[in-house]
């Protein structure tokens, strides 16, 4: 009993860590390869979660919904909507210098959040969307369903990893890294920096939305509370920087490690006296911040630093 409780704690840990791994891989494409400072991750995550929730929910309360579409349709719609929103934002903002891009994306994420809270006909406002299905719910029940879901999440992680890996080692990724390192020089060798950055931003937005969709299906209920920037944007950045910006494996490792610490701090803060309980989330952030300090003191480029793609195949000739 004890043991299976621990096992299922581990399963739920892996599920959330997997969802974060998708976000981190997406952020790694944007920031690690492309140098795009997206500080509005939570916005794209929310778009994905709500799109999937509304499209797939089995019954709606006061908002549009009850379309009962399959989960794959929901994810496709989430990806398309996030891609379109990302494209629109990218057209406007992607040429901004990185600190300005950060400010613009924070603002946009906040606008998305306000829309979600206020447009009750669409999102049911602060009450959130419920009746969201899980994949293969009809087939697997109870604890098996948890295991099936974690496998589903990690399949998406692998897919994201695979795509990101291909992008990284292709001439596309090489041009993108050149743009990240020196925009003027990249222009001088014929790279359309605006176009590359737009593509990068859109790809990242799509995978952030997929992560949002996964979490909607996991919780089966989704409200604006789940799109807190602290919980999404801040943690994802810590994960990527600690894990190793520019390194896909680092992005996944960062998600696992930081999520593990974050989960443990929840247990720790549970022991705090009750008058501290309201402050526990700040304590947890402080601990995460200390962790990042600790990692960066020792490993300046993260635990798994960026590495150039291998050229062995080319060397043979």
């Amino acid at each position, binding site marked *: 009993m004890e043991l299976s409780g621990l096992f299922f704690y581990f399963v739920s840990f892996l599920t959330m860590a997997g969802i974060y791994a998708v976000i981190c891989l997406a952020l790694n494409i944007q920031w690690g390869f492309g140098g795009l400072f997206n500080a509005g991750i939570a916005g794209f995550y929310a778009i994905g979660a709500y799109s999937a929730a509304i499209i797939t929910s089995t019954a709606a309360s006061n908002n549009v919904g009850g379309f009962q579409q399959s989960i794959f349709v929901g994810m496709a719609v989430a990806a398309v909507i996030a891609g379109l929103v990302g494209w629109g934002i990218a057209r406007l903002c992607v040429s901004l210098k990185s600190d300005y891009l950060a400010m613009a994306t924070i603002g946009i994420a906040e606008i998305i959040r306000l829309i979600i809270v206020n447009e009750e006909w669409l999102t049911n406002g602060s009450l959130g969307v419920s009746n969201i299905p899980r994949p293969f719910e009809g087939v697997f029940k109870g604890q098996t369903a948890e295991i099936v879901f974690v496998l589903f999440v990690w399949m998406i992680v692998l897919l994201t990893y695979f795509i990101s890996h291909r992008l990284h080692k292709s001439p596309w990724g090489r041009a993108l890294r050149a743009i990240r390192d020196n925009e003027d020089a990249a222009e001088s060798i014929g790279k359309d920096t605006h176009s590359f950055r737009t593509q990068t931003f859109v790809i990242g937005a799509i995978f952030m939305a997929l992560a949002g969709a996964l979490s909607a299906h996991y919780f089966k209920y989704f409200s604006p509370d789940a799109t807190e920037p602290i919980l999404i944007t801040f943690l994802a950045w810590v994960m990527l920087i600690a894990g190793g910006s520019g390194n896909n494996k680092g992005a996944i490792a960062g998600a696992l490690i930081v999520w593990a610490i974050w989960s443990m701090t929840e247990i720790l803060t549970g022991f705090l006296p009750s008058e501290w309980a309201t402050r526990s989330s700040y304590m947890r952030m402080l601990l995460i911040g200390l962790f990042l300090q600790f990692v960066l003191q020792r490993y300046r480029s993260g635990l798994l630093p960026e590495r*150039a793609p291998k050229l062995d195949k080319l060397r043979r000739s």
Partner: protein
Amino acid sequence: MIQLENVSKRFGGLTAVHNCSFSIPTGQITGVIGPNGAGKTTVFNMIAGLLQPSSGQIFLDGEDITSLPAHKRQSKGLYRTFQLAHEFSRMTVVENLMVAADSSIGENVFNAIFRPSIFQKHEHAAYDKAMETLRFLEIEKLQDELAGNLSGGQKKLLELGRTLMQTPKVILLDEIGAGVNRSLLSKIAVKIQQLNDDFGYTFCLIEHDLDYVSRLCDEVVVLAQATVLTTGTIDKIKRDERVVEAYFGGGKYEGAHA
């Protein structure tokens, strides 16, 4: 041929380039000289498309390219190096050159994800060309080093290498010699001469070393205080009173008498 017609560039209140008109004839090696702050680099930035002229026009083989985006000028055969090295610092040396090769198929995002096999041949070609260029520049041992870790001179060589990865028509070199050791510098001069003779590449180089300029250049453009002071052969330039005054500070530059 590149032609500048009454090109000016103002930065707020400062006029960096004022009503400049000159041409860079096809197949020749043209030098641009002038004191610090004369506006030489600003002129290059406008020809390369990095800066928009405040007024005036720039033509490439008769076509008005004044407002053509920088990245579209490369496909017209226009290449440049930067005075301050613009290396891709977190990429390896060989990648710095490969990225300048023609990789348009692999730069399509769908091909990159779904059809990596179709650009493998191009990757081989890009790698071979990059290694050949590195060997010429005598930095092939550094191929896997991060470009950010190179010395100043090595970075300048990398800049030069980048312009040689495809078939250029016009190459603009902004103080390519600054910080490069003398023996390699004369090797580069030989290479420039050779590329010019054998392939007819047009060169335009900004250089402070007058010996180097007189060794390579057919015509010289002298910029001073944002305007074209004079143009002509190096011998004519050296005899020009105004040039001596503006540039050599009253004959202090020893090369002026060489």
